[in-house]
């Protein structure tokens, strides 16, 4: 859906084949009963395929396929959505991108290289509500005491915190908001598991109590967090949209097959115009969702002035359209679609999480308007 060059196609196919072998739906169900869904070995193999290096420039040890790493990464996120595969794909890539963009030389060595080669993963502790740019931020504060930063506060929900060796935390300092890298385990950091809709990705409540770090743990400039956050949101929004397109694709394929196989009143479901028209709507939503996600990644890669609008619009549209379409897949399946035995719910779960975490469609819609107003103001 997102591959446009032969190289991207090969890359995507390799990822798809790997995920198929590692995460067949039976196994995805089993993961639900395990304390952690994270498989370090499988993750490292994925990293070797290139899952974690695309948002990092070559000089920092990464490299893209097409020159636009976000565009390349869409193919991976799409396949993760199609297989409801555990990550932590999004947070690891997000933190890697942040370290590559704003990290110190030291941070670009060990922590970043560990993320790229898959020996480590990361969790991103950014704000969940983004609709009010002035009142944003997290409930984590940082006080400077000599050469130390002291972090206190709480973040929830955070994906993959218990398996991560790094937390990238958005903190409030007297000078403004900043990003701080917290290596784990660290005294004062407590991760409490949350119950989640998603069966494969795990979420935690992360509490920081007087966590002491050297000031060099800051990523980038003190007080530059607001600027960084916009970029994080753009990347996250686009990747979430790509996962959602993948989840919808899988449900759509299952449902189309079902309409052919299922007979009622002596006719296949596929012969009823009502069903045909709903499948047509779904197919269009799938194509439209993929199109705006791709366009957003292009705009981001090109550094277009309206890139943030495209990225926000992508997850706004796909978030709503994919959820509605997946629910309609359940409707077309009838009673069987409501059972835990059928695979549909695995993707509905994935889609719900992708839609709500990191800025809901409602929040992202507000962001679109805020950005438009800002652009209008700048134009005079």
């Amino acid at each position, binding site marked *: 859906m997102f591959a446009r060059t032969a190289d991207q196609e090969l890359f995507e196919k390799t990822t798809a084949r790997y995920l198929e072998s590692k995460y067949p739906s039976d196994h995805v169900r089993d993961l639900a009963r395990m304390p952690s869904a994270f498989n370090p070995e499988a993750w490292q193999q994925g990293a070797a395929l290139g899952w974690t290096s695309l948002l990092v420039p070559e000089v920092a040890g990464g490299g893209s396929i097409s020159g636009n790493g976000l565009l390349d990464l869409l193919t991976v996120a799409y396949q993760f959505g199609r297989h409801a595969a555990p990550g932590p794909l999004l947070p690891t890539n997000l933190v890697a991108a942040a370290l590559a963009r704003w990290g110190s030389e030291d941070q670009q060595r060990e922590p970043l290289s560990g993320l790229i080669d898959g020996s480590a993963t990361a969790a991103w502790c950014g704000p969940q509500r983004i609709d009010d740019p002035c009142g944003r931020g997290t409930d984590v504060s940082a006080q400077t005491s000599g050469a130390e930063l002291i972090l206190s506060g709480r973040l929830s929900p955070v994906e993959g915190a218990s398996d991560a060796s790094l937390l990238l935390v958005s903190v409030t300092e007297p000078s403004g908001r900043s990003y701080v890298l917290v290596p784990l385990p660290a005294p004062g950091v407590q991760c409490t598991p949350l119950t989640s809709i998603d069966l494969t990705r795990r979420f935690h409540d992360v509490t920081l109590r007087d966590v002491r770090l050297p000031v060099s743990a800051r990523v980038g400039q003190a007080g530059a967090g607001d600027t960084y956050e916009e970029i994080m949101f753009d990347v996250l929004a686009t990747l979430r949209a790509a996962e959602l397109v993948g989840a919808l694709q899988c449900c759509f394929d299952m449902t*189309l097959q079902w*309409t*052919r196989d299922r007979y009622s009143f002596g006719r*296949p479901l*596929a*012969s009823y*115009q009502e*069903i*045909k*028209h709903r*499948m*047509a*709507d779904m*197919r*269009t939503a799938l*194509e*439209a*969702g*993929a*199109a*705006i996600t*791709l*366009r957003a990644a292009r705009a981001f890669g090109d550094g277009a002035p309206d890139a943030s*609008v*495209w990225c926000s*619009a992508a997850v*706004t*549209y796909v978030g709503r359209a994919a959820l509605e379409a997946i629910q309609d897949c359940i409707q077309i399946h009838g009673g069987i679609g409501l059972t835990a035995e059928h695979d549909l719910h695995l993707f509905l779960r994935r889609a719900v999480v992708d839609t709500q975490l990191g800025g809901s469609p*409602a929040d992202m*819609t*507000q*962001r*679109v*308007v805020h950005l*438009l*107003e800002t652009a*209008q103001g700048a134009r005079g």
Partner: protein
Amino acid sequence: MTDVIDIEEFAAQTRTWLAEHMPPAPRVTGSFVLTSTNPPDELQLARFEKCRELQRRLFDGGYAGITVPQQYGGQGLTPAHQTAFNRELVGYDYPAEIQASTFIPCMALLLEFGTEEQKQRHIPAMLRGEEIWVQLLSEPGGGSDTAGAVTSAVRDGDGWVINGSKMWTTDARYGDWAMCLARTNWDVEKHRGLTVFSFPLTTPGVEIRPIELINGSTEFCQEFLTDVVVADRDRVGEINAGWDVVTRWLYHERTISGGSPYVTGRGNRPHDGPYDAMEMIATARELGTLGDPRTRALIGEAHTLSLVMKALAESVTQKMAVGALPAHAAAMMRLFSGTMNIRRAAIGLELAGSQAAAWQVGDDTFAQLGSGYLIRQVSCIGGGTTEMARNVISERLLGMPREHRNDAGPFRDVPRSPQATATR
């Protein structure tokens, strides 16, 4: 093709020429029916005269029919030259209103199906702005079922006699010539008894009446054809092979929104009018509601849908060009644009509130939002209904079973609407 001018050089020449010869673009308030403010007939007629004059300027400057062969008055260049010209044209006025129907589908069809004599006679005249063409395709008895035409053409010596009625012709009152689909054989399956003709709109027996739409627009017309005599040399394509022409006709018609080598500028100047996000923000600011999160949610939704439409059109067009999607995938663009436009019309109404129900003279934005809502279903009906688009997507793209049809036998025996009986 050895001495084709380089694109960059062509663009540079175009830039200089445009600056010297073409006027700046007028501020568009409503040429698309959804946002129409319905200028009076005199203004519309004046605009068509202006289009003729602008077309003549393009012709004299060597920019009319950029991809049309030189022997028919064109420039014999490539679609890339037309694209370069269109890029340079942004900000200038151009004969937007005659792109459809004169150049697509009519000129495009003459190039594909016309006789040498027809091409020589009409295409240079079209390119000089002397002949504006309209399309007589739809009928009162059936919209989506184009092949069910009941306008009849009967052979009479060297010519044909046409009787029937056509509908939904855009700006027929300002046209010179028409391309018309008629039935020439009633005893075969419906697609196999059709023929395409052309004739001047001044031919005796042609009566044109504007249709008043619910927003007051009179852009569309209905034509009554009574014993209209057409010479056989004005027939386009073979007798009873009209469906081959119509297939291309519908194809060219769809390329108005992009992809046609025969369209100058952005076609018939599509624009979002009051539904443009910046316009919506200005409207909300004027109403004092811009700070209201509900208003902001509506504006954000409308803008998101516009961006999705843009991305979808780009992506599907590109995928069709490289063969990653079949031509039928265009139906997804059609469906999305329909559903997007009706939602935006609803958003515009909510945004304007009582102002869209009653407004002062001169309040164009509110007039457009109010009457735009009344006419909003046009975007799911005109140019093929969204129901048809859903059939195409499910049947042609997804391979779901075709709808049952009841028109496989001789057309004479096919059950028809009562409106579709005005035949001889």
